[in-house]
């Protein structure tokens, strides 16, 4: 945190909780010297929704739909992580075709998430034309997802023990056609972001993070991969359909904003290739297996690669049909360190782009609130204490 009393006259520019740069509430304070940022601090927690607690009062099927709503963009991976974890606890494996469909939807979701990010990041850099075009082309993925699952967001493809929808040959053809268009457009966008002089001026050499720094701050996902860290759960701990359909690691060593653009666009191309590959080799099995309502007692960890990076689920069961504890750690939370540590020294104008460069999702990561109180152990709060604190706070 930046509350250092020795420099009282510094000029602090607040970004958020309400600010046009961020469509979600998060608060950043940049102390600036002219246009140069000298310090940065972040405050999160504006959209804490108590989802983990909520999951404890629902049965597994209901909790899966709740988990799907942790994030609006990468909803499917959350449900997949939860379903995979629950299936592991129950000792059930979903059929191969179900896993393949999960993977296809996950990759389509990655496409739509990365295209959304491409647009947002371009908008932060004031390149609204790229923003409009990438969002226009994103509609193709959204329409594909709608055709497959029946919804544009919160697809609800997963069931515990399988998936709801099948991919028919007609749908497969439709997907292939959509992918043709997307691959062509992505190739074009790759050319635009790597050659356009004005845009390069905003991305090249901005927000650079070396491999060691990325490792040190615990960055995950495309942010880390753009710095040359080889980390991708799909490759290193394959889940769902990835053991059968391996994915190639996309990596860049430059570590600046440009590298993050390049990594994400290349990842989209890789997703297109993978989806085609799966569509050509769809396993012919059932879509679901029987799942017990009561999950045997135990705990498990489930890790998946969300579009933003590694998504971590911890599920503890006590033998009933309701989970005892669900812990979610989203990739955005891991990536804040990289923003806050490497912001100083850059121009204020680069801040929105550096912030957007990690593809932040605030409502995803606002999961844990730590409350500091002087007279007692900060970790220990009884229900009554919390209630009292709440009453006092809102009085």
């Amino acid at each position, binding site marked *: 945190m930046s509350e250092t009393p020795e420099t009282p006259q510094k000029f602090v520019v607040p970004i958020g909780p309400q600010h046009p740069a961020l469509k979600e509430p998060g608060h950043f304070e940049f102390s600036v010297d002219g246009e140069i940022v000298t310090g940065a601090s972040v405050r999160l927690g504006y959209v804490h929704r108590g989802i983990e607690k909520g999951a404890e009062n*629902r*049965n597994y*099927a*209901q*909790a*899966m*739909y*709740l988990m*799907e*709503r942790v994030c609006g963009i990468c909803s499917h991976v959350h449900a997949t992580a939860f379903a995979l974890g629950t299936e592991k606890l129950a000792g059930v494996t979903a059929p191969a075709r179900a896993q393949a469909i999960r993977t296809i939807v996950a990759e389509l979701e990655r496409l739509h998430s990365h295209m959304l990010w491409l647009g947002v990041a371009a908008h932060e850099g004031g390149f609204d*034309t*790229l923003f409009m*075009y990438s969002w*226009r082309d994103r*509609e193709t993925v959204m*329409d594909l997802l*709608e*055709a*497959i*699952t*029946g*919804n544009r967001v*919160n697809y*609800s493809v997963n*069931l515990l023990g399988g998936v*709801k*929808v099948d991919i028919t040959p007609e749908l497969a053809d439709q997907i292939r056609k959509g992918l043709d268009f997307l691959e062509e457009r992505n190739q*074009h966008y790759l*050319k*635009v972001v790597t*050659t*356009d*002089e*004005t*845009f*390069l001026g905003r991305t090249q050499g901005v927000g650079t993070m070396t491999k060691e720094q990325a490792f040190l701050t615990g960055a995950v996902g495309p942010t880390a991969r753009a710095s040359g860290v080889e980390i991708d759960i799909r490759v290193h701990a394959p889940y769902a359909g990835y053991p059968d359909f391996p994915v190639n690691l996309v990596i860049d060593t430059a570590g600046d904003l440009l590298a993050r653009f390049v990594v994400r666009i290349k990842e989209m191309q890789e997703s297109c290739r993978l989806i085609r590959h799966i569509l050509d080799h769809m396993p012919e099995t059932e879509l679901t297996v029987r799942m017990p309502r009561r999950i045997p007692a135990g705990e498990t960890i489930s890790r998946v690669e969300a579009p933003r990076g590694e998504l971590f689920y911890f599920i503890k069961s006590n033998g009933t049909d309701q989970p005892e504890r669900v812990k979610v750690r989203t990739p955005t939370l891991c990536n804040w360190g990289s923003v806050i540590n490497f912001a100083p020294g850059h121009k204020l104008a680069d801040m929105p782009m550096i912030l957007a460069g990690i593809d932040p999702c605030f409502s995803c990561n606002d999961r844990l609130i730590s409350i500091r109180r002087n007279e007692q152990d900060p970790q220990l709060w009884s229900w009554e204490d919390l209630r009292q604190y709440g009453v006092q706070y809102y009085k």
Partner: protein
Amino acid sequence: MTIGAMIGDILRSLFKKPITERYPFERKPAPERLRGKLHYDPEKCTGCMLCMKDCPANAIEILTVDRAAKKFVMRFHTDRCTYCAQCVQNCRFNCLGMESEEYELAALSREPFVVYYGREEDVQFILDRAAQENPDGTDPCQPPAAA
């Protein structure tokens, strides 16, 4: 290194029709699998209540008129429903389905959000019973007491 790498796009767009969909004026056909309003067939229902149990939004209430005669009425809250279709999956007798054409469900008051499905006389029975229990006519949209 080029200046204005998107010039091809913007020049082509000038002579193209805008991609914007003028939604309320022009409607695209809904995809076949779109999950719209839930429909219930009282003839097939056996009253297993699995739909109600797994509904993540408590949007479904199966009200028993006569268990032995398999007479049930479903009270469906369209405003609570998240349209996840878990109930459709749970139903082993195919008496639930989601209509792909009925998706414009916004309304200006709360009344249209509570939908009763069932045989006419059963629905009437349920409504009468509700009126008896709540003579002052309280909102039927309270969370179900059973949950």
